């Protein structure tokens, strides 16, 4: 069967079930059940589905998502996030979009944590969005920047996906980690320019207000009280990795602990706040993990059908220039990201793509950087990009999937712009790498 036929047969019912209102996780599960029954020998296939579903959740790489949820919920419920925003208002009250910019800043800061974009969204989405909305930020300016900047998690070292890319593609991990920094910062810059521009054109999206004149002393006091202690959290996350005290996944736990500790020191960690934090972070983790497990097993099924290899072959057999082939590879990765997770995409494409890129005489590090931006773009792309469902799980009540799609799209376009820039200006990747590894 042609790959696009298989893909249609699988994706249309999936989308149909979701549109009909079956919860996303169960829609995946339903397709997985029918698919494994038909493809993998009847009930043997269903037994395998049970094993694969269990295996997909029993994974250390997913643990940071749950731990970030604790951080985000604790920051939100103990009022740490609100204090932070109050202080920012005191300094920059007149700057339109300051909270959106703060979200991008948060994305950059926590990008020093490993993990995929889901962790960042869990953290920033739960701690920032409710308060941003309360302060009059429209969805495109509250959800969008978080969705956009969450992907920086994989673009700024340490990055577990970059390491996996190095391992599967047999490319220098050290060089990839250096090579992705400038593209990551470039993306952050594009997001900032976009936020400033859009807030200028549509001021109602991110209200500014005339801050009552605040004295310098008051500003400084607020900073010392509300922002300086946050360095404890930042250290417990970034510092411990940098000093080799904890691995990136472990740092998510020390970060969660530090956040709770800070809340306790400020006498805001009542038993109720603690209980609510743990209960609600566990709940949101469940929503996310159930979807992730459904999506992972779905990817496995799709790989079994051969449709994914069909896509790869179709791209490679196009009668176009080498440059165009590589560009199409990257676009294919974005496309696959709309309905598959990063790891399966890497396993399917990298062993085939990397040798071809090398054969074309192109720089594999440059390709790796493009590849990661593409993975990150796909993860936030409708309809099934996993990051979008995570956002739905953490966003304030009343946020619709449509809101999330609309908020995501400008940032996807910016990511595509970043891909184009990196594609046509390889020096963005190669110059830092050459400087570091002479």
């Amino acid at each position: 069967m042609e790959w696009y036929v298989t893909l249609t047969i699988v994706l249309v019912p999936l989308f149909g079930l979701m549109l009909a209102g079956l919860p996303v996780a169960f829609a995946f599960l339903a397709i997985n059940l029918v698919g494994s029954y038909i493809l993998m020998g009847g009930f043997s296939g269903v037994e395998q589905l049970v094993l694969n579903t269990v295996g997909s959740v029993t994974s250390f790489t997913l643990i940071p998502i749950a731990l970030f949820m604790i951080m985000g919920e604790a920051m939100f419920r103990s009022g740490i996030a609100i204090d932070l925003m109050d202080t920012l208002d005191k300094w920059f009250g007149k700057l339109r979009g300051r909270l959106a910019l703060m979200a991008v800043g948060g994305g950059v800061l926590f990008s020093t944590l490993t993990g995929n974009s889901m962790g960042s969204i869990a953290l920033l989405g739960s701690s920032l969005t409710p308060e941003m909305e309360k302060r009059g930020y429209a969805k495109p300016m509250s959800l969008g920047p978080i969705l956009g900047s969450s992907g920086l998690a994989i673009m700024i070292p340490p990055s577990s996906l970059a390491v996996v890319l190095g391992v599967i593609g047999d490319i220098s991990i050290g060089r990839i980690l250096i090579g992705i920094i400038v593209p990551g910062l470039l993306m952050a810059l594009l997001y900032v320019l976009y936020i400033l521009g859009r807030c200028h054109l549509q001021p109602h999206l991110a209200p500014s207000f005339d801050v009552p004149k605040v004295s310098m002393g008051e500003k400084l006091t607020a900073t010392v009280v509300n922002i300086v202690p946050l360095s404890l959290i930042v250290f417990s996350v970034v510092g411990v990795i940098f000093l080799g005290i904890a691995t990136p996944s472990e740092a998510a736990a020390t970060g969660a602990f530090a956040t709770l500790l800070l809340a306790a020191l400020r006498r805001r960690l009542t038993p109720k706040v603690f209980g609510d934090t743990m209960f609600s972070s566990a709940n949101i983790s469940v929503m996310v993990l159930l979807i992730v497990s459904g999506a992972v097993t779905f990817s496995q099924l799709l790989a079994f059908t051969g449709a994914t290899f069909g896509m790869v072959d179709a791209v490679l057999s196009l009668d176009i220039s080498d440059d165009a082939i590589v560009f199409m590879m990257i676009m294919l990765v974005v496309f696959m990201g709309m309905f598959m997770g990063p790891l399966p995409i890497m396993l399917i494409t990298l062993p085939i793509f990397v040798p071809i890129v090398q054969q074309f005489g192109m720089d594999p590090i440059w390709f790796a950087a493009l590849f990661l931006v593409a993975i990150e773009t796909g993860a936030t792309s409708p309809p099934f990009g996993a990051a979008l469902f995570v956002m739905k799980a953490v966003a304030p009540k009343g946020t619709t999937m449509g809101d999330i799609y609309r908020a995501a799209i400008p940032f996807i376009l910016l990511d595509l712009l970043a891909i184009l820039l990196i594609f046509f200006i390889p020096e963005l990747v190669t110059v830092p790498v050459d400087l570091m590894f002479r």
Partner: protein
Amino acid sequence: MDRTLTQLRRVFSRLNLFCAVIGAVLLSMIAAIICSEVVIRWLGGASQLWVIEVSEYALLFITFLGAPYLLEKNLHVVMDLVYDSLSGRWRLILQLMNATIGFVLCAVLTVVGISVVIEQYELGVRLVTVMRPQSWWITAALPVGMALMTVQFLDQIIRTLRGEVL
């Protein structure tokens, strides 16, 4: 009949909540053991080899123990593009369809899940890890959660047939 139903609902509702609370406790435990692993190693102590593994298993149980509670409260992530704008009959029809699909799905996975657990138990299959636990009690998380969700979807079917919009 209605009274029995109400009582049954209350029993399962408590059961779901109980499982979800266990999930939250397990999550706290994950954070605690990973933090203590970091601190112990930092102070020069030996790495606790079981920490990663236990966290992984806990994550699995959090997921399947917590899912029934979320289903009861209608908190699972839903693609609301079309669904939320519907009302009246169409909404009920889709609701019935979804509840039925969910019911069949979870029932099948409960039954097959149990048979996998029994098979693993009889064969003595173990996970290939440091702790080498028997696989069956890890796998058991799935049928437990699925069974409770089967009940929830059944309740959704009953409610829908009585015309309730969920």
